[in-house]
């Protein structure tokens, strides 16, 4: 559709009320906030209705208003900011070390035949031991500490990342490597200039999956190791029967992940693989 100029829109708007409404709708839906929050409106409405009509007993199912009150209360007391910063610190450590280990390891396994032969069975074996299955022994080793949580997050991030890097490197077209070689690039140059960017769509996907896993592992670890953090907050609230705090915790998780995606992952992909036309643009709204 060819978008008319704003002047044309304004003139059209003065004609009929229905037109005016249509123009207003188009203007509003063009803004980022509406695009981001719009899909949540019906869900919140349904949620609110379910709570108001007491479809479930109020002790088990609270409405948006109760959660909002809880949110403001916890913010004022400083509990939520404290827990949030604890969770985010753990996540940052976990992600940092996870990427630092996973990316080089992935490229090493992908590039070297003997490294692959040596590590592939190990990778598959250890991938099968779920992140949380490590918690018992990790707690024995490191106690209820940042190290224990970091270990579990790193563990969950590394495996999907390594597998993604390997498949990414395999996807680099042979012709591109050949082209670079016949333009005079040596092995190292081919790696830096061709293999790494060529594998980037898959690597970006691997980072996305890895972070998603890491995020879930963090919450699981906090629930089990639990001394602080959003996961701990939710589980602790369940213990004392404070349903609104549990709801709040779930919402906080969703919002944080969305923010991470919108502020870090999506811009990175827009600047690289989407700009280079290597993947279709994720969606019009981004």
């Amino acid at each position, binding site marked *: 559709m060819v978008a008319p100029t704003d002047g044309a829109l304004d003139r059209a708007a003065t004609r009929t009320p229905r037109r005016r409404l249509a123009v207003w709708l188009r203007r509003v839906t063009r803004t980022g906030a509406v695009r981001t929050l719009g899909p949540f409106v019906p869900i919140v409405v349904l949620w609110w209705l379910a709570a108001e009509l007491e479809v479930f007993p109020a002790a088990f199912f609270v409405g948006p208003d109760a959660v909002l009150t809880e949110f403001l209360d916890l913010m004022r007391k400083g509990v939520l900011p404290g827990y949030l910063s604890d969770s985010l610190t753990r996540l940052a450590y976990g992600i940092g070390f996870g990427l630092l280990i996973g990316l080089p390891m992935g490229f090493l396994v992908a590039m070297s035949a003997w490294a692959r032969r040596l590590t592939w069975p190990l990778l598959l074996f250890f991938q099968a031991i779920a992140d949380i299955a490590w918690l018992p022994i990790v707690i024995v080793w490191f106690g209820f500490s940042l190290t224990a949580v970091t270990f579990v997050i790193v563990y969950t991030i590394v495996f999907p990342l390594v597998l993604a890097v390997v498949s990414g490197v395999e996807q680099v*077209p042979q*012709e*591109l490597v*050949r*082209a*670079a*070689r*016949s*333009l*005079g*690039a040596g092995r190292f*140059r081919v790696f830096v*200039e*061709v293999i790494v*960017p*060529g594998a*980037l769509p898959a690597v970006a996907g691997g980072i996305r999956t890895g972070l998603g896993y890491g995020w879930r592992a963090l919450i699981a670890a906090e629930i089990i190791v639990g001394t602080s953090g959003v996961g701990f907050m939710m589980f602790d609230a369940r213990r004392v029967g404070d349903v609104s705090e549990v709801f709040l915790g779930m919402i906080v998780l969703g919002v944080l992940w969305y923010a991470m995606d919108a502020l870090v992952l999506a811009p990175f992909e827009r600047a*690289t693989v989407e*700009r*280079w*036309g*290597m993947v279709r643009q994720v969606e019009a709204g981004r």
Partner: protein
Amino acid sequence: MTALEISGLAKEYVDSYSGDRVTAIGEVTFTVEEGEFVSILGPSGCGKTTVLNIIAGFVEQTAGTVKVGGRVVDGPGPDRGVVFQNHALFPWKTAAFGLRMKGIPAARRREIALEHLELVGLAGFENRYPHELSGGMRQRLGVARVLANEPAVMLMDEPFASIDAQTRRKLQEDLTRVFELRRPTVFFVTHDIDEAVFLSDRVVVLSRRPSRVREIVTVDLPRPRDWQGTTALPEFREIANHITALLSEGGDREGPELTAA
């Protein structure tokens, strides 16, 4: 002077599915002089592209030698620039990669890149990524990338095969113009007889597998060439018909396409 010397080239490989030894190239010998445009033609599956891949150093031959400027070559190198059928441009690059590999300073690199973009008719497109260019433009860029690198030989692997007929004609004419202007040494793989005759000084005609050189046909048509004028010459048709005959004859005599030993 001889730019490219191919002697006694042979390629055997083991079919990974059946385990049979297959002779793809029986014995291929020819030369390309400096500033000469030589095409290679043959029935499909005769190993034309394999010959190019061996010259480029992408594939190892079973026997025979490849000499560039009198020196035996082994593995890929910047002395043999390749224009690929599917262009093989780097999706993430806009700059002149090969020139950076040569260690040429940035300012000079830009100058050379712009000069060659203009040469192939892409002036003003220097900041575009490959996916923002049409198929024909990508192939022009592929040619510019190789010429800018000043290789001893430009190897072209059916560069216009997957391009629509109209654009192809234009690209063939522009390639001829660039060739007549710059006189690079070109080795050109194709399955299109008219294209080979129009572009080349000589055409190497291969037989079916295991391929040998059936004949090296000299194309003694005047330059500069243009599609309408050149293809209308009686000599053009004569040469094209001669090659057509060679190719169909080769098919009859060699029997089955695959010769397993």
